C-alpha cells in the first residue's frame, strides 16, 4: 500500500524515461566502442603485457569483445594459455 502510494505520488518514477535512459546507456557502450576499434586494440595490447607476466599465452588466438546480454554489456575475453610461469611467491 505504501509502495503503491509512493508510486502514485511519483516517488519512484513509473514513467518510461528510465527505460529510455537505460537503453540509451547500453546502446552507447557499443556505439562508442565501434567508433574507435583502436581502443579495443590498445586494451588487447595491455592485457597481453600484463598476463604474460604470469603465463605464456597464444597471442594469435586471443579475442576480446564487448558482448551484450539482457541488461548489461560485458567485456568478454578468450585467452588460450600455453604454459604457466613459475613466479616468485607462487607455491606451485
Amino acid at each position, binding site marked *: 500500500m505504501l509502495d503503491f502510494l509512493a508510486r502514485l*505520488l*511519483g516517488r519512484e518514477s513509473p*514513467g518510461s*524515461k528510465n527505460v529510455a*535512459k537505460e537503453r*540509451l546507456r547500453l546502446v*552507447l557502450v557499443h556505439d*562508442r566502442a565501434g*567508433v574507435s576499434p583502436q581502443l579495443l586494440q590498445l586494451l588487447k595490447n595491455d592485457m597481453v603485457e600484463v598476463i604474460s607476466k604470469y603465463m605464456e599465452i597464444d597471442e594469435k588466438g586471443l579475442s576480446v569483445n564487448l558482448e551484450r546480454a539482457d541488461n548489461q554489456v560485458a567485456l568478454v575475453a578468450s585467452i588460450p594459455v600455453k604454459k604457466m610461469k613459475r613466479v616468485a611467491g607462487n607455491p606451485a
Partner: protein
Amino acid sequence: MSEVIVVTSGKGGVGKTTVTANIGCGLAMLGYKVVLVDADTGLRNLDVVLGMENRIVFDLTDVIEEKCRLRQALIKDRRFEELFLLPTAQTKDKSAVTPKDMQNICSQLREHFDYVIVDSPAGIEQGFQSAVAGVEKAIVVTVPEVAAVRDADRVVGLLEAKAEIRDPKLIINRLRMQMVQRGDMMTLEDMHDILGLELLGVIPDDEQVVIATNRGDPIVINENSLSGRAFKDIVRRMLGEPVPLMNLENGEGFFNRLRRIIGLG
C-alpha cells in the same frame, strides 16, 4: 576575434535550422555582425525560416563556381542591420560543395563578421563533412528521445575524430514539461550524464516556434514567448554570461503539491 560555429545533430528534423536562425538573430539584435551559412544544399530551409526566400539571386554554389563574388551572394536582413544570409542552391546536390570549398568560404567570411554560423544538413555523409570543414566550434542539437541522443553522440565522436572539434556544446530542443513531470521524458540531467557535454541551453516544445516560422520571423524576436526567452538566454551564454537554466521541469504540478502537502516532497 570572430567565431566560426557549426550547428549539427546527426538526426534530421530536430531543430538545427531553427536554432541557427534564432541564435543568429539573437546575436544580431545585440549588435554583432553575423552571417548565417546554409550548408544544406538541395534542401535549403534557412532562407524560409528567416523570411528571405524571395530575395535570393546568387548562392553558395555560384560563389564556388565563380559566377559571382562572395559579397554578391550575401543577403542582408531587413530587420537587423548586421545580419546576413549566405543561401545555398536548391537544385543541386551535396557534391556541389566540397570540404575545401567550405574552408575557403568560411575563412573569407570570418574576415568580415563576428560570427559565422553554419547550418549543417542531417546525416554524417558528405554534406555534414563539408559543413564542419571550415569551423572551429560546434553546437549539437538534440531532442529528448533515444534515437536523437544516440545520433548526437555519434556526431560528437565524428566531430572530434574527423574535424578536431573538441567540447561541442549541447542544445536540447522540444522539451515537454508535462512529460518530464510525469517521468515520460528524459531530463536535462539525464542527457548531460549520458552525453557528457556542456549544456548551452534548453528550448521548450512550443507552438509559437511554428507560428513564428510560418511568418518568417524567428521566435527570438518575440519578447513574450517562453521559447524566445530560451533562445535569448542561449545567446547570452554564448557571449560568456553565466545565465542560469530556465526551470522547465519542476512546475508545481498536482502531484508535487500533494507530495509537499503530505510531507513526501
